[in-house]
């Protein structure tokens, strides 16, 4: 009862029996379900990664450009730093800092997605397509869905920038930035797994 009152008093204006922010709880539940979603896609890739018949185009492993993908992985990793710095900025009431770090995060995200589009274009030119082989399908599904998630994250970041400019993110409502940040970091950890499992671990 006391925790419930505390949450209401803290300005969140919500009733909670756990003493926790309901929206944040929902976000963690959503991220848990996303683990299942990407877990399924990664499982599918692992099981089909060497399934390429003769004449079905190259195996993805034969055409990966590891240095290139390493750089884009590093870019996405650093976007997690700028995201958490945006949260730290709004938590200390630095609105200009919030917008700067949010824009930096969005920019790094765009660099990553742009790099992925370029990589896809090169792969298609090499003969690896969504429908060319089970390995190709699994690769494009996994990395494509991840790219779509990054794109959604970029849109949310730009929305936050707009809200901040409109004065709709006061220091006391840093939770909005924290929730988008949780989503962004999740997208980053998915890529940490994808980079290792898909790109670095060699075929037997």
């Amino acid at each position, binding site marked *: 009862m006391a925790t419930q009152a*505390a*949450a209401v*008093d*803290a*300005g969140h204006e919500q009733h909670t029996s*756990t003493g*926790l922010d309901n929206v*944040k*709880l929902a976000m*963690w*539940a959503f*991220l*848990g*379900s*996303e*683990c*299942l979603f*990407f*877990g*399924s896609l*990664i*499982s599918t890739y*692992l*099981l*089909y990664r*060497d*399934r*390429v*018949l003769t004449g079905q185009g190259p195996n993805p492993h034969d055409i990966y450009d*590891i*240095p290139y993908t*390493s750089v884009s*992985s*590093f870019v996405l*990793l*650093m976007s*997690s*730093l700028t*995201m*958490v*710095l945006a949260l*730290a900025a709004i*938590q200390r*009431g630095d609105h200009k800092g919030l917008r700067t770090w949010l824009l930096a995060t969005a920019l790094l995200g765009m660099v990553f997605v742009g790099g992925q589009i370029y990589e896809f274009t090169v792969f298609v030119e090499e003969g690896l397509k969504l429908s060319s082989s089970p390995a190709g399908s699994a690769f494009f599904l996994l990395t494509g869905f991840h790219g779509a998630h990054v794109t959604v994250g970029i849109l949310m970041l730009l929305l936050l920038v707009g809200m901040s400019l409109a004065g709709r993110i*006061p*220091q*006391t409502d840093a939770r909005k930035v924290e929730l988008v*940040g*949780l989503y962004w*970091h*999740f997208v*980053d*950890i998915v890529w*940490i*797994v994808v*980079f*290792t499992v898909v790109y*670095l*671990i*060699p075929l037997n």
Partner: protein
Amino acid sequence: MPPSEQLEPVEAAELAHHPSPRNYVTIAVVLGVITLAEVAIYYIESIEPLLVPMLVVFAFLKFLLVVSWFMHLRFDSRLFRRLFVTGLVLAALVFAVVLSTFFFGTLDGVTPTVEG
């Protein structure tokens, strides 16, 4: 700070547990170094037998650092951790189930494999 932006005691106490920007930068540097190490060992032929275990350990370390420090799971409620771990465990179960179909076949006796 305007009066409307004064933090409530509950929020201020929560913030006190969060790392500082300096901590975040340190974590990012460690993440960058691990990524560099991952790519470096990929090209070293002499450690090929250890490549996969090392890559898995490095990825796990990076995963843990981001989840613990950037997502604040280390400092937040245990309930959040449980929700997230439940998702991870279910994902591992899905992989185990799909993998098992490749060894034991499906109900109609057709194994879902493609000639490679």
